[in-house]
C-alpha cells in the first residue's frame, strides 16, 4: 500500500519543487531589482563602494553560495526526478505485483472450491461404500437363512430353468448345484406335465399352495409344492420361487392312521359281534337260570303238596292202633318221605342261593345253645354207630350273637351228618373257636373233624360241586345226593365266609369254616322256650284257610293233636265271612286259592276289617317273591309245606303269646288309625326329579290330575264292558304314573297284572278286585295330589 502512497508523495514533492522554482525565480527578480538599486547605490555608494566592494564581494560570495546551493538544488532536483522516476517504476511494479496477487488469490479460491467438491464426493462415496457393505451383509444373512431351510427352495426363470437353489434341494435331488443350475425344473418330478401346470398356475395366480407332487430322486419323495412369483424393482415377473415340502412322514402317518382306523373299525365290528354273541349267550344263560329256577320252584310246589299229605297222614296214621308190621311199613314210608323232603329242600336251597334269593336273617341267638341243640339231634345216630362225639366250645365267644342261626344249623348239620355218615369207628369232633374279635364283630371258626374214610387229594376240589361225591361208589355205599357240601359251600360263601378241607384217605377229614357275626346286647329270641309254655296255651281257635281237602284234613288233625279248636275255610272269601261272625286267635292261610287268594284275603282282613289277627302263610313254594309279598300284605309269618309239627306249634304259640287280648285290641285300633293316615303318594321321586322346583312339580301334578280320572273311568268302563283292548290301554298308560307319584310298587304290579289279563284273558280271578283297588288308590292319589298342589301353590 505504501507503493500506492508513494506516487502521491512524489506528486506532492514535485509540486513543492515547482513552488520552490517559482520562489527561486522571484528571488532572481528581486536580485535584479537589488542590482539596479545597487547601481543606484554605486553612485551612492561611492562611499559605499568600499562598502559596496565589500557588499559586492559579499554578494559574489553569496552568489557563489547561492550558485552552490542552486547546483545543490539541481542535483537534488535531478535526484528527485530520478527518485520520482524510480518511484514510478516501483509503483508500476507494485501494481503488477498487486494484480498478480489478486490473480493468485482468485486461483486459490478456485482451488478451495474444487477441494470442497472433491470432499463432498468422497463423503458420498464413503456412504455408498457403507451402504454396500450393509446390503452385502443382509444379502449374506438372507442367503444363509435360505440355506438353513430343510425344504428344497428353487428359483426358476420364466423359461422354467432353475436359476438358484438351496442345499436342501441338492440333498433331496442328490444332484450337484452345478448340474442343477440351468436345467429344466420340470424334469425333477414324476409328472412333468403336472409340474408344468402348477408352474403356469403360479404365473396366472401369482402363487400356488400345497400342491402335491413327487420329486424324482433315489426314492421318489412326495412333496407339497408351494410357489410364488417374484418381481424385479419395476414389478415385472422375473421368475418363481418354489418351496417343496417333504411330506413323506406325513403321508406315512396318514397311511398308518387310515390303516389304524380300518383296523379299529374291524376290531369294533368284531367286538360288536362278540358283544352281541356274549349278550345272546348271557340271555340264554339267564333264561336257562330262570327256567331252572322256575322248574325247581314248580317242582317243589308240585312235589311238596302231595308229600305234605303223605307224610302228614303217615304221622297221623302212626298214632292210631295198628299191628307192628303195619307200623314198620309206615315208618318206612315216613322215612322215605322225610328223605325226599330233605332232598327237595336241599335242591331248593341251592336254587335259592344260585338265584341270589337266599336271604340271611340277622337275628340275635345264643350260639352255644344253638350248637348243643343241633348236636343233640345226632346223639341217637352216633350211639347207634358206636362213635364218640366230642364238642369243644370256646367260652370266649360272646353269648349272644347276631346272625342267621337257621343257616348255621344247616351248615353244621350237613357237615356233621356227613361226618357221621362216612365214619364207622372213632370220634367226631366239633370245635367252635373264637378267631377274631373287634368292636363290632367276632369271627368264629367252626371245625368238624372225623376219623372216617377220608377223601383223595385230587377229589377234594370236586366234592363241593353239585351232585358230586368223592367217588361214584360213595353214593352206593353211603347214600346221599351229593348236594350237602355244595349247599354248605354256597351258604358259607354267601355270608362272606370261607371253607377249607384237609383230609387223608382212611384217616379222616376236617372241614372248617369261618363266619363273622355281629355283637349285640339284645336278648336272643329263644324258640325253644315256647316249649315251656306249652301247657299255658290251650283252646286256641285257629282258622285254617286251605282249598285242598286233603290238606284241610291234615291241618285239622295236627291242630286237634295240639288241642286247638279248628275252623276250616276253603278260600279267602269264606274265611273273611267266617271272621265277621266268629272270633279266632290265629289264621293259617294258604296262598293259592280260588275266588280270593291268600294275599287278597289278608289285605282285606287288614285293610277292610281292620283286624290285627295273626296270620301265618302256608306256602309250598319258598323260592319266589311270595315271601316278601306275604310280609307286604301284612302276614305275620310263614311256614313251608309240608308242615313241621313242632315248628307250626311254636310259631302259633309264639304269635298268639305276643298279642295278648288286650294288646290285640289296642294294636287293632292303632292299625285303623294308621290306615287312615297312610298316604298312598310320596313326593320324594318328584322332588328328586324336579330338584324340588315348585313350578315343575305343580306342572307334573296338574298333568296327573288331568290325565288320571279319565283313565280310571276308562278302566272301569272297559272292564265292565269286557273291552279288553281298552282296558289294556288304560291300565298300560297308568303304569308309569305310579312310580312318578311315589305310589307303592304293589299297585304298579297290580296294574301290570290287569294289563296281562287284558292281553291274555287268562287267570281272571281277582282281576275285578285289582281294578277296584287301582280305582281307589288312584282316586286317593288324586285327592292327595290336589292337596299337595294347593300346598305348593300356597307355599310359592
Amino acid at each position, binding site marked *: 500500500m505504501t507503493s500506492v502512497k508513494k506516487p502521491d508523495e512524489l506528486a506532492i514533492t514535485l509540486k513543492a519543487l515547482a513552488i520552490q522554482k517559482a520562489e527561486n525565480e522571484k528571488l532572481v527578480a528581486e536580485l535584479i531589482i537589488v542590482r539596479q538599486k545597487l547601481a543606484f547605490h554605486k553612485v551612492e555608494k561611492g562611499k559605499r563602494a568600499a562598502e559596496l566592494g565589500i557588499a559586492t564581494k559579499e554578494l559574489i560570495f553569496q552568489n557563489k553560495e547561492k550558485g552552490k546551493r542552486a547546483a545543490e538544488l539541481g542535483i537534488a532536483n535531478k535526484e528527485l526526478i530520478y527518485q520520482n522516476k524510480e518511484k514510478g517504476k516501483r509503483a508500476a511494479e507494485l501494481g503488477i505485483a498487486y494484480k498478480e496477487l489478486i490473480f493468485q488469490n482468485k486461483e486459490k479460491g478456485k482451488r478451495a472450491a474444487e477441494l470442497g467438491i472433491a470432499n463432498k464426493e468422497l463423503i458420498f462415496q464413503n456412504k455408498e461404500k457403507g451402504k454396500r457393505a450393509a446390503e452385502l451383509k443382509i444379502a449374506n444373512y438372507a442367503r444363509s437363512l435360505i440355506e438353513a431351510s430343510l425344504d428344497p427352495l428353487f428359483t426358476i426363470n420364466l423359461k422354467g430353468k432353475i436359476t438358484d437353489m438351496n442345499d436342501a434341494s441338492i440333498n433331496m435331488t442328490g444332484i450337484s448345484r452345478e448340474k442343477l443350475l440351468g436345467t429344466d425344473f420340470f424334469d425333477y418330478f414324476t409328472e412333468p406335465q403336472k409340474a408344468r401346470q402348477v408352474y403356469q398356475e403360479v404365473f396366472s395366480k401369482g402363487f400356488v399352495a400345497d400342491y402335491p407332487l413327487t420329486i424324482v430322486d433315489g426314492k421318489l419323495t412326495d412333496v407339497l409344492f408351494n410357489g410364488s412369483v417374484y418381481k424385479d424393482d419395476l414389478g415385472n415377473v422375473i421368475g418363481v420361487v418354489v418351496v417343496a415340502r417333504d411330506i413323506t412322514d406325513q403321508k406315512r402317518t396318514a397311511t398308518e392312521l387310515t390303516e389304524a382306523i380300518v383296523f379299529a373299525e374291524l376290531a369294533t365290528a368284531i367286538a360288536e359281534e362278540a358283544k352281541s354273541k356274549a349278550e345272546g349267550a348271557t340271555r340264554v344263560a339267564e333264561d336257562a337260570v330262570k327256567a331252572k329256577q322256575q322248574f325247581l320252584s314248580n317242582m317243589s310246589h308240585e312235589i311238596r303238596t302231595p308229600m305234605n299229605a303223605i307224610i302228614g297222614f303217615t304221622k297221623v296214621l302212626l298214632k292210631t292202633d295198628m299191628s307192628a308190621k303195619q307200623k314198620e311199613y309206615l315208618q318206612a314210608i315216613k322215612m322215605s318221605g322225610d328223605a325226599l323232603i330233605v332232598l327237595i329242600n336241599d335242591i331248593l336251597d341251592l336254587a335259592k342261593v344260585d338265584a341270589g334269593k337266599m336271604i340271611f336273617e340277622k337275628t340275635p341267638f345264643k350260639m352255644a345253645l344253638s350248637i348243643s341243640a343241633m348236636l343233640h339231634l345226632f346223639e341217637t345216630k352216633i350211639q347207634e354207630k358206636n362213635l364218640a362225639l366230642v364238642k369243644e366250645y370256646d367260652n370266649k365267644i360272646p353269648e349272644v350273637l347276631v346272625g342267621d342261626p337257621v343257616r348255621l344249623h344247616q351248615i353244621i348239620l350237613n357237615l356233621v351228618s356227613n361226618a357221621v355218615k362216612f365214619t364207622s369207628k372213632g370220634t367226631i369232633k366239633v370245635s367252635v373257636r373264637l378267631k377274631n374279635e373287634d368292636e363290632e364283630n367276632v369271627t368264629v371258626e367252626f371245625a368238624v373233624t372225623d376219623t372216617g374214610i377220608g377223601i383223595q387229594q385230587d377229589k377234594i376240589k370236586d366234592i363241593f360241586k353239585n351232585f358230586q361225591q368223592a367217588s361214584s361208589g360213595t353214593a352206593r355205599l353211603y347214600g346221599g345226593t351229593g348236594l350237602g357240601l355244595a349247599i354248605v359251600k354256597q351258604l358259607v360263601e354267601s355270608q362272606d365266609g370261607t371253607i377249607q378241607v384237609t383230609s387223608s384217605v382212611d384217616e379222616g377229614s376236617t372241614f372248617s369254616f369261618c363266619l363273622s357275626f355281629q355283637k349285640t346286647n339284645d336278648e336272643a329270641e329263644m324258640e325253644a322256650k315256647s316249649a315251656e309254655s306249652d301247657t299255658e296255651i290251650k283252646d286256641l281257635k285257629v282258622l285254617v284257610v286251605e282249598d285242598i281237602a286233603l290238606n284241610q284234613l291234615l291241618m285239622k288233625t295236627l291242630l286237634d293233636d295240639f288241642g286247638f279248636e279248628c275252623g276250616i275255610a276253603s278260600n279267602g272269601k269264606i274265611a273273611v265271612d267266617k271272621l265277621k261272625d266268629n272270633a279266632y286267635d290265629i289264621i293259617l292261610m294258604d296262598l293259592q286259592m280260588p275266588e280270593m287268594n291268600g294275599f287278597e284275603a289278608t289285605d282285606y282282613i287288614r285293610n277292610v276289617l281292620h283286624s290285627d289277627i295273626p296270620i301265618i302263610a302256608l306256602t309250598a313254594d319258598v323260592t319266589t317273591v311270595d315271601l316278601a309279598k306275604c310280609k307286604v300284605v301284612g302276614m305275620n309269618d310263614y311256614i313251608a309245606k309240608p308242615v313241621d309239627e313242632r315248628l307250626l306249634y311254636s310259631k302259633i304259640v309264639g304269635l298268639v303269646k305276643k298279642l295278648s287280648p288286650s294288646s290285640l285290641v289296642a294294636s287293632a285300633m292303632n292299625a285303623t288309625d294308621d290306615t287312615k293316615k297312610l298316604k298312598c303318594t310320596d313326593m320324594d321321586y318328584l322332588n328328586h326329579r324336579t330338584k324340588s322346583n315348585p313350578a315343575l312339580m305343580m306342572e307334573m301334578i296338574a298333568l296327573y290330575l288331568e290325565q288320571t280320572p279319565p283313565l280310571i273311568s276308562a278302566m272301569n268302563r272297559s272292564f265292565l264292558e269286557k273291552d279288553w283292548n281298552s282296558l289294556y290301554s288304560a291300565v298300560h298308560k297308568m*303304569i308309569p304314573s305310579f312310580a312318578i307319584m311315589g305310589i307303592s310298587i304293589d299297585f304298579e304290579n297290580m296294574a301290570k297284572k290287569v*294289563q296281562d289279563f287284558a292281553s291274555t284273558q287268562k287267570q281272571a280271578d281277582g282281576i275285578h278286585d285289582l281294578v277296584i283297588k287301582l280305582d281307589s288308590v288312584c282316586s286317593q292319589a288324586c285327592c292327595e295330589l290336589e292337596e299337595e298342589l294347593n300346598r305348593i301353590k300356597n307355599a310359592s
Partner: protein
Amino acid sequence: MNTINKIKIFLVDDDALYLKSLEIEFLQHGDFIIETFSTGELCIAALSHNPDVIILDYLLDGIDKNAMNGIDTLDKIIAYNPDIPVVMLSAQDKIDVAIDCMHHKAFDYVVKSETAFMRLQKIITTIFRYKKLEKELNWYMDRM
C-alpha cells in the same frame, strides 16, 4: 353354547305325565333342545325342525283309537329321513314289541321303567359316537 351345537330331541308320547317327566329329566341332565308331541301326527308335522334324535312311544293309539300308532309314526319318520335315529319307548317288556320296532328300523327299544331315562341317555351318547365315527370314516375314505 349356541343353539347350533345343541342336540335337538323330539319326545313323542300320549302320556302327558310321562312325557313331562322325561322332558324334565332331559333338561336337567343335559343341554338339549326338547320338543314334545302328544301324537305321532304332530311329530311328523314338525320333522322339518330337523331333530337329531326322536324318542317315540310305541303305544300312541291307546286312548284315541284313531291316532296314528308308534310303528306307523316310525315308518313315516324313516320315510322322511332314514338317518334320524328313533328310539322306541314302551311300557311293555315284550320281545315281539322289540322285534317289531327293530324291523321298522328303530335305532333302539327301551322299556319304560326306572332306568329308562338312563338308558336313553346312554343311547343318545352312543348315537352321537356312531355318527362321529361314521363321519371320521367317511373323511378317511374320501382321503383314500
